[in-house]
């Protein structure tokens, strides 16, 4: 043996990309991640002085066991799924639209205008249709502004769409405190509740928006996978140079796709005001536009996977509301708990893609035959 050349040691742990992982093993890892997250969350619950088993039980029963609970959970899942579906084509095109929150609000404002001021002039079906159309167009136009700037002048869409959120949020506040303020409400300024004719009918206890959103999910899957537009979106997202090389009209594709993305978000805004809250508030978008980004990423932009993930997140949200009331757990602690579960879920994807090699462990031999 020769003398050591330098005093470096092989690192204790190294990371290597996995060649392939069997679906079974991947699911084992995911289940292990869920169990670990529940255990870690359990420590937090014990620290708060509660029994983790009853807290977890109440999270599940509080979101799924009764009809009322199921309806409440669905009312969270539906707009979340809709917002995630609206993000899908934009993100596939690598257009980082984080303005979904604002596009939802833009749609909600447009729908609310007709609900509040035109309900006397239109029969119910026509009123709902007009509200729907107005929301779709308003959401689309709100998204169109950053899209045009990006397509023609290459501005940064992330900042642009984010800023657009704040503008529309302040427009809502202005409308609530100013022109749209309900004169009959005393004290805190509010916008009036919608007339019954401006409220969406229910199907199985939830406004019929859920049927349309599920339909949109199927549509989006087919659109992105099998349509010429979907193919163009994918090519532009991967390489604008390639798109230009084959002669695609890149600005038109960007503008068209982002209009659609905003239009779906606007539709979600209509469902929220007309199917759920029956009025317009500062909280109408309620963070759905931002949470939907998590949904879209976790689902790897697959619309069907978005259904599962938005339902899962809705259960967590509703469940954490339940434990707040049942155990007097503070809202912030309930959010930490949700965060822990999400953290483990995301973290396990790393272990699915990579493996760790420990020092002195046997190295895999390579054979050629």
């Amino acid at each position: 043996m020769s003398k050591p050349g330098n005093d470096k040691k092989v690192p204790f742990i190294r990371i290597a990309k996995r060649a392939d992982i069997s679906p079974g093993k991947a699911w084992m890892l995911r289940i292990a991640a869920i169990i670990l997250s529940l255990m870690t969350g359990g420590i937090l619950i014990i620290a708060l002085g509660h029994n983790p088993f009853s807290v977890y039980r109440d999270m599940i029963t509080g979101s799924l066991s009764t009809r009322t609970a199921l309806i409440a959970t669905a009312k969270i899942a539906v707009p979340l799924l809709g917002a995630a579906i609206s993000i899908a084509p934009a993100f596939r095109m690598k257009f980082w639209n984080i303005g979904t929150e604002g596009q939802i609000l833009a749609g909600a404002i447009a729908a609310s205008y007709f609900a509040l001021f035109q309900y006397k002039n239109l029969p119910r079906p026509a009123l709902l249709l007009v509200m729907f159309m107005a929301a779709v167009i308003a959401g689309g136009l709100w998204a169109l502004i950053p899209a045009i700037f990006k397509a023609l002048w290459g501005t940064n869409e992330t900042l642009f769409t984010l800023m657009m959120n704040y503008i529309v949020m302040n427009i809502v506040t202005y409308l609530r405190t100013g022109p749209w303020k309900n004169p009959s409400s005393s004290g805190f300024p509010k916008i009036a509740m919608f007339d019954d004719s401006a409220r969406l009918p229910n199907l199985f206890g939830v406004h019929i928006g859920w049927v349309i959103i599920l339909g949109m999910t199927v549509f989006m899957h087919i659109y992105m996978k099998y349509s010429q537009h979907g193919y163009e979106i994918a090519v532009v997202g991967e390489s604008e140079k390639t798109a230009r090389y084959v002669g695609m009209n890149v600005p038109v594709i960007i503008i068209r796709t982002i209009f659609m993305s905003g239009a779906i978000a606007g539709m979600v805004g209509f469902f929220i005001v007309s199917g759920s809250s029956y009025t317009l508030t500062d909280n109408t978008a309620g963070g759905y536009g931002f949470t939907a980004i998590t949904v879209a990423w976790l689902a790897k932009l697959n619309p069907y996977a978005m259904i599962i993930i938005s339902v899962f997140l809705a259960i967590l949200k509703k469940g954490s509301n339940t434990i707040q009331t049942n155990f007097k757990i503070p809202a912030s602690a309930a959010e930490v708990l949700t965060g822990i579960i999400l953290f483990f879920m995301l973290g396990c994807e790393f272990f699915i893609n990579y493996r760790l090699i420990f020092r002195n462990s046997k190295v895999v031999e390579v054979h050629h035959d």
Partner: protein
Amino acid sequence: MNPVNAIELIDITKTFGGIPANNKVCLQVRWGEILALLGENGSGKTTLMNILAGIYFPDSGKVLVNGSEVTILSPKDAYDLGIGMIHQHFKLVDNMTAAENIILGLKGKGRLDMKAISAKVREIGEKYGFSINPDKKIYDMSVSEKQTVEIIKVLYRGARILILDEPTAVLTTQETDRLFQVLKNMRDDGKSIIIITHKLQEVLAVSDRVAVLRKGEYVGTVDTRDATAQSLTEMMVGRAVSLNIERPEPVNSVPRLVVKSITSYNDEGYKILDNVSFTAYGGEILGIAGISGCGQKELLEGIAGIYPVTPDSSIEYYPDDSGKPTELVGKRPMQIRKLGVALSFVPEDRLGMGLVGSMDITDNMMLRSYLKGKLGFTDRKPPRKLAENVIEQLNVVTPGVTTPVSKLSGGNVQKVLVGREIASAPKVLMTAYAVRGLDINTSYTIYSLLNEQKKAGVAVIYVGEDLDVLLELCDRILVLCGGKVSGIVDARTATKEQIGLMMTSLGGEAKK
């Protein structure tokens, strides 16, 4: 200097996702020699060198530097051991000067003494015969100057073992000669130099010994004076290969593409093409030569309708029936296709422009034809069939049609791209650096594909950088110099020196 080897690699194995890039590779590099590392694409040369440079860590095996076993975990460890690598893609900060780039990342005193640093940089330059201005900004530099900065960067850090990954791929003949002189000076100074290259003439010209890898395994090392281009190729490929490029005589040459005074400005308003005119004939290969960045890319992209040219430029395409020519200026690629112009283009940037790396072979075949489906849907059946044909006819090595093209090796990527462009039965076929980075075997496959097109009456335009190949493959060569036509020569009679001169000065008149 010690009589021991500068570097000894013993049984190095490195796998990526289960696929071995290096399998029990052994290699010895002596002090004071230039060792050429030779191998086809995917033979594991770069991986092996990245292990030495501290970028990858081997799964197993030993690395000995100057006789002692070492562990190299990072590029810094490599520098500490006197190993420096000059990568194919330069890693320099554009808006800093040469000297600033050279000291970047080094520890030093609180206050920088740029004068002393510049002096030391100059001193290194003079010692080995470089010309360098330490205070010049990188963005003002030519490719060759940037390479000089990279080399001095590793010398400044005290490297005694230098690894160069395809250093000549971007250089002109004259620049290559200069680089080789520098490498020889360094060798004579006792340093050891490993050079990765595909070009056999260069291996024979500059190296002392040649080590050959094939499919991740070590084949052997030979003394350069005992080697020939033929013997090295056989070691690399594993069987005998003919190194002659066929050049059939053009038959029935008819004008196919008449380019009249194309002028084009780039984004900065700089004239990148200046009054370029030529005619491409069916049944011939027209070569285009020039130092990098003198308008070749813009010329081809301008013809393809991707790069803007001034409205008074004219590009006329003559269809078969000697009918009226079609004017291509001002039209986009899709409009050009709709007019029935059979123009195919293999661009320089294969994965960034010609293909979509993350998409599979079928979807890449569909790029040209995706609008053919009905009712706004795509029809993947014909492109899938095409993908299967290309894989079979061009021997594309791939697990299947659903493999993303970015997972294929460079040669197979190019086969997919060329296969698609040829499949649309072009009358004009433009290729930019069609064999760049490809190994000998694949390069010859591409040459014979181009020759087949030529024999079928296609007007082939071949932008290349290797003058030997241009002179052997093409019928005529158009030489560009600073966006202007320096001249069009007969490739059967022209010489390398003549073209080299025309590349650097208009018309080839020697500079005073």
